[in-house]
């Protein structure tokens, strides 16, 4: 199922436009610049369902700075700021 995505370039979810759909490739907390430690950020993202292979779609974004974003992760919706979403590498 990931075959269709192999050709797409990897990018952080934090840079994606509203309406973007993709699959999580890996998590990379150290590039996110979050106030949380890498381990803490990664743990929290996993606890909210952001694991490799999960399908994501950006459903909504906020007014100011198009932030935060509402992301569909498989069948639940999670609100995150773009800063933390930088740790989620999608393609």
């Amino acid at each position: 199922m990931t075959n269709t995505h192999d050709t797409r370039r990897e990018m952080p979810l934090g840079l994606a436009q509203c309406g973007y759909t993709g699959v999580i490739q890996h998590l990379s907390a150290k590039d996110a610049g979050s106030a949380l430690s890498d381990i803490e950020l990664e743990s929290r993202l996993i606890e909210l369902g952001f694991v490799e292979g999960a399908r994501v779609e950006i459903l909504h974004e906020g007014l100011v700075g198009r932030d935060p974003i509402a992301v569909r992760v498989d069948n639940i919706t999670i609100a995150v700021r773009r800063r933390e979403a930088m740790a989620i590498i999608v393609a």
Partner: protein
Amino acid sequence: MELPLLHLALVGTPNSGKTSLFNALTGSRQKVANYPGVTVERKEGFFVTPQGRQVSVVDLPGTYSLRGRSPDEEITRDFVLGKASGETVPDLVLCVADSTNLRLTIRLLLELKRTGRPMILVLNMFDIASRRGISVDVERLAKELGVPVVTSIAVRKGGTADLLALTDEISAKLAAEPAENTWRALSVSELRATQREADRIISDCVSLPSRPDTWTARVDAIVLHPVGGLIVLALILFVMFQAVFAWAQPLMELLQSGFDALGDLVHATLPDGLVQSFLQNGVISGVGSVIVFLPQIIIIFLFILLLEDFGYMARAAFLMDRIMGGAGLHGRAFIPLLSSFACAIPGIMATRVIDNKRDRLTTILIAPLMTCSARIPVYTLIISAFIPAKDVWGFINLQGLVMFGLYATGIVSALAVSFLIKFFMLRDYAPAPFMLELPDYKMPRLKSIAIGIFTRAKMFLQRAGTTIFSMMVLIWFLASFPQPPAGATEPAIDFSLAAIIGKALEPLLAPVGFNWQIAVALIPGMAAREVAVAALGTVYAIEGGKEAAEQIGQVLATKWSLATALSMLAWYIFAPQCASTLAVIRRETGSWGWMAATFAYMLVLAYAASLLTYNVAVALGAG
């Protein structure tokens, strides 16, 4: 044979419907308290199983894992592990899952299993899942997880029958010694592996429909629209405040005339004298003038509980995150601040969802500026006495508009204070993350709402019955003694202790237009804001003598200038007139210093605002 009390614990992720299941199991047989040493709300309820087992069930704070990131989550972890001080280890853990959203709960369950506690997985909201075309192979799921699984529909009558039967069946054969606890905090890779395992089990046992919940998507298209969403939010808040003012009116008038009639009855039955004065002026008019506000408090809690149950609160946090971020607040602060409209105490306690200490502290400091329900009596009284009930622009009630203005001033000031705190005190600040599940919309559960409102109304009435009652007795005493000498021509109250205290404070408060009667009312108002209304009622009732049955609002309209009334409104937006709030701030921040800081800054703001309001009003000819 009498069976021993069975201890159950409800564990689940936020939004799993844990609380509605708790309400369905226990009804109104609930006890709300705090865990020893921490201010986490402890909800325990009781019920009897079909086989006659007495069961105590504790609704633990929602959590995604046992890592214990916040005080709430630590309680859940320690409780399940049997490490919570003074708590019984649960005989059986009910892990509650939203059937439409199993991923996160199944991972939590796999982690919980390591604690070795006997456990049942409860697939709650099973009706919604079925309606959406989600089918679960319950038997296979139970086999894969190694845990009994049962479906439930907490909101339907009899929807928990299977759960009750299974509870009986399992508790009958509970081993004396449960399995060993092998739980320890999971590393990132273990966490990932657990989620993978959960996903594998789900793909084996659950078939998901291809279509998502279209209803939620359609509502969110409007409600989460960058601009439209904010308009909807503003409309909801506006309707809420108009409702508090307009809908409650008939009921309040009914209550008021009830208390008036009771007062008259006492006046007519008892001989003139101290006992009559105590019952009529101290007890009935005092406590009555506070209980009259019960309808408004019920309406505001109705709105807050409805929005919470519907799933809107998380959306409001999403919409407000960056906007509040501009004022230095975290999006998660929105829910505590909105709760503070009901009462700052639950609001401040709800700041525990904010895991960053600085964000939390800022939220705690400004929460008391949100217009709590205890201010409603004061606002309503003054507004209805001084602001004409006419319509502006044809459809907006002027009184409602002033009320809205008072709320808005509170909000704007709170944001300004927060901005100043961030700017001057917490400059080296990195914004804490905002991560929140936006649950699918659900029809609010009437029974849950009813229980929620009942609990709050009970708390309010208990306060009226204890704190407020004792304050009223004190005020009546101060206003009645010493008695005037024989042959005195002035009103009796001029000779009382209350007048002596009030007149001593008057010079301090004269610049803001307060007379000594207000000074007297402000002192017991420290115990609870709404007491000030009752205290004014008592002071003027005793002073007024024969016209005591007259409504307090009419009395004020004749005794105060408009400038004084407006100054009083301004005072109440800011004044730290609530000892319980200060006590909660002390407890939640663990510091007397922050409590003192809150008290001081609010007092300064109150005095400045009143001074400004009074002088501007006088200059405009309202003195």
